[in-house]
């Protein structure tokens, strides 16, 4: 088994685990963690693609590497923003879940203009 296959399977498994965690974990923070896991699996996928494209004395195709660096930055910003939202939500309402209390069924006149 080459390192590409080993880490390729690892990446696929990370994606699967991330998806599972996103669906089943009730706390938002755990969902954010799962999203990061999912993201790192996808980045590894780029790494494998790049590793297969090693040529011209470069051990890993630099284009996917650059894409991953950009992607990591974006994923980090997303995490930071999600955490800020979550903390603010906790501060405002004391809840940290994405409870799907349907806004349709609330008969109260919630303000929102």
């Amino acid at each position, binding site marked *: 088994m080459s*390192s590409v296959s080993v880490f390729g399977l690892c990446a696929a498994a990370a994606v699967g685990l991330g998806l*599972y965690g996103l669906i089943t974990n009730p706390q938002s923070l755990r969902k954010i963690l799962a999203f990061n896991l999912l993201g790192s699996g996808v980045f590894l996928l780029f790494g494998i693609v790049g590793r297969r494209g090693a040529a011209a004395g470069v051990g*890993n195709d630099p284009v996917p590497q650059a894409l991953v660096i950009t992607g990591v930055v974006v994923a980090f910003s997303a995490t930071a923003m999600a955490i800020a939202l979550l903390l603010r939500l906790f501060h405002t309402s004391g809840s940290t879940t994405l409870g799907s209390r349907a806004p349709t069924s609330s008969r109260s006149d919630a303000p929102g203009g």
Partner: protein
Amino acid sequence: MSIATVFEIALAAVVLGLAIWTIAVPETYSATVGFVAYGLLVALIWVRLDAVDVALTEAAIGGGLGGVVLLGAAARLRDAEATAAERPDRSTRLIAAILSASIAAALAFAILILPDYAPTLAPAVVANAGATGMANPVTNVLMAFRGLDTMLEKVVLLLAVVGVWSLASDRAWGGRPGPRHEADPNGVLAFLARLLPPAGIVVGIYMLWTGADHPGGAFQGGAVLASMWLLVIMAGLADTPPVSSRWLRFILVAGPCLFLVVGLGGLCFGAAFLAYPVAFAKPLILGIEVAMILTIAATLALLLAGAPERNT
């Protein structure tokens, strides 16, 4: 099976074990700790894949600053865990498991059947490296060939800051982000915060400088600088600046602004937007990177600090 393969399989197994731990362990805090360890080990995978630039980024972000954000949130939300909603019932979890496994299987299948002849742009990148005078191919892709992506990514970072700040209460708008850190000025943390930053700043600048020809770059260096600033803040030696501060705003836009200006300069003096005149390519790119490292350091630190909370 060579020793390298055994090592790789063991590494993959440990990484997967940590991933399972992160998803399955009941307490959120333990899960977060597991994720930080996972991020550091994934950086090792990147080294094995011969992508050291990415490994540095992953270690600085996935295991480092990202870990700090997540751990901080986990610590602040510890009390909320008791009130959290229940897990979905068993059948939902079973369906979720089957579907996630199917997606993972499809992905694994797609990876394993990738063509034997792998298409690559590595030769093209190496052949065109002369245009920038820099030897690190990743830096060349980021700064020259795909400059637009890098510039837009910096705007994404800035928008994340706007997004985080927009969560402030109206009363705290313009104030300082995050809680005030009071620490013993003679304590060990304050000692570390005086000792480490000079060295850390040198390391950060070194990573930027060496990024021209070797693995490294503005983002990795910026992450080091950001952590130094945060250390000083956490030790109570300095406070976060108020978000209305003019110089802070300028630093936060300096990187993308200079990128934009140089890009437009390429329009006037070079071949196209975001093209560098060959003679000045290296100094121009380094100039952008210097502005960028400041912007990145400030942005990352402020994203970690959170929304403005207090006016004093």
